[in-house]
């Protein structure tokens, strides 16, 4: 027994040579499988079997900080939306898209006839100073174009309805954004 100096009956049952060999081999094989399929891919990005990347374990080494723009996978793809915004009489309304830096949005909007003053602009994420950057300011009843977000934040339109009746804006967008809504 391993601890020969300990007098006790509660010890490891004696194993035969073949069993001992079997258990030792099992421990080596199990360790090797765990190393090759899980530990080495995760720790060192060494992935001879491809199991590591199949399990999604090779991600720890792939992320190099500062390389490229960090975009959640689901927001990086193109999305389209058709939105109707009602601007009440004599009031202003903001409709914004939350976008990461360098995400691009193509848009087209028309009103039901009357022209609206608008300011297409962006506000940096987390900014509390009230800073914004305008991309276009005019009074029009329709406009189409595109813009690339110069910084992460909320980007979109401020429409001001100076008339005495509500005006409905039909906005169609396609591009990359995280979420959108009235502000």
């Amino acid at each position, binding site marked *: 027994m*391993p601890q020969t100096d300990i007098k006790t009956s509660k010890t490891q049952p004696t194993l035969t040579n073949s069993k001992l060999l079997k258990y030792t081999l099992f421990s080596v094989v199990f*360790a090797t499988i765990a190393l090759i399929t899980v530990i080495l891919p995760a720790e060192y990005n060494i992935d001879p079997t491809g199991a590591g990347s199949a399990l999604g374990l090779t991600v720890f080494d792939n992320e190099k900080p500062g390389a490229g723009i960090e975009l959640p996978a689901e927001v990086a793809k193109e999305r389209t939306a058709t939105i109707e915004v009602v601007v009440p009489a004599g009031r202003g309304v903001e409709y914004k898209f939350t976008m990461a830096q360098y995400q691009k949005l193509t848009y087209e909007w028309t009103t039901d006839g009357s022209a609206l003053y608008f300011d297409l602009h962006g506000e940096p994420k987390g900014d509390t100073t009230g800073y914004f950057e305008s991309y276009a300011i005019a009074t029009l009843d329709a406009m189409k174009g595109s813009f690339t977000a110069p910084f992460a934040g909320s980007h979109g339109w401020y429409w001001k309805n100076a008339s005495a009746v509500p005006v409905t804006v039909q906005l169609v967008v396609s591009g990359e954004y995280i979420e959108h809504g009235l502000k």
Partner: protein
Amino acid sequence: MSHYFHRFGALSSVALIAILLPLEAFAHGVDENTREFLLNNTGVQIIPFLYIGAKHMVTGYDHLLFLVGVLFFLYKSRDVLLYVSMFTLGHSATLLFGVISDIGINAYLIDAIIGLSVVYKGFENLGGFKQTIGFTPNPKAAVLIFGLCHGFGLATKLQEFQLPSDGLISNLIAFNVGVELGQLTALAFILLVINYWRQHASFIRFSTITNCVLMSAGFMLIGFQLTGYAVS
């Protein structure tokens, strides 16, 4: 119940503190905050070094696996005390010696040897030495020798930081004492679990497979560290 409390009350409170310790650090090295501290450290800082030492031990799965292997078949408190003392003596000696004399041992290689100590202990618990070479090498001596290896492993962790000589000895001793406090905490856990499990028949039924898994974990540590050595 109250008997249990008296016996384990102190240990349990240490254990509770350990649960509250952040567990983001792993066997390899030191987390970001600790790194920052060690790099900017000047002068004697007893409590922080105590803490780093304790944390290193509590979160160091290589040391813990070895302790599990050592304690697995120790039924008497006297034996537990004796073996743990041997381990403590071994790793304290090389921790102090390694840092003071600035002996440079590759951290990957020493950690691979620590992995080997886990394999050795598992194999010994399986009765493997008796079966294959006819006798079991003195287990106390083995624990002492592997304790020396674990100490060099601890030393490499501290040496990564070129600690200033100002207050080095005090900080080093604080780290060492911290390691022992961490070890006591870990022991409290391991003993509680093992002692509870021993009351059940499954302990012996599963002792073979448990030590087999222990060996396997040791092999994993060896492979992990040797690969680290190869790619570094």
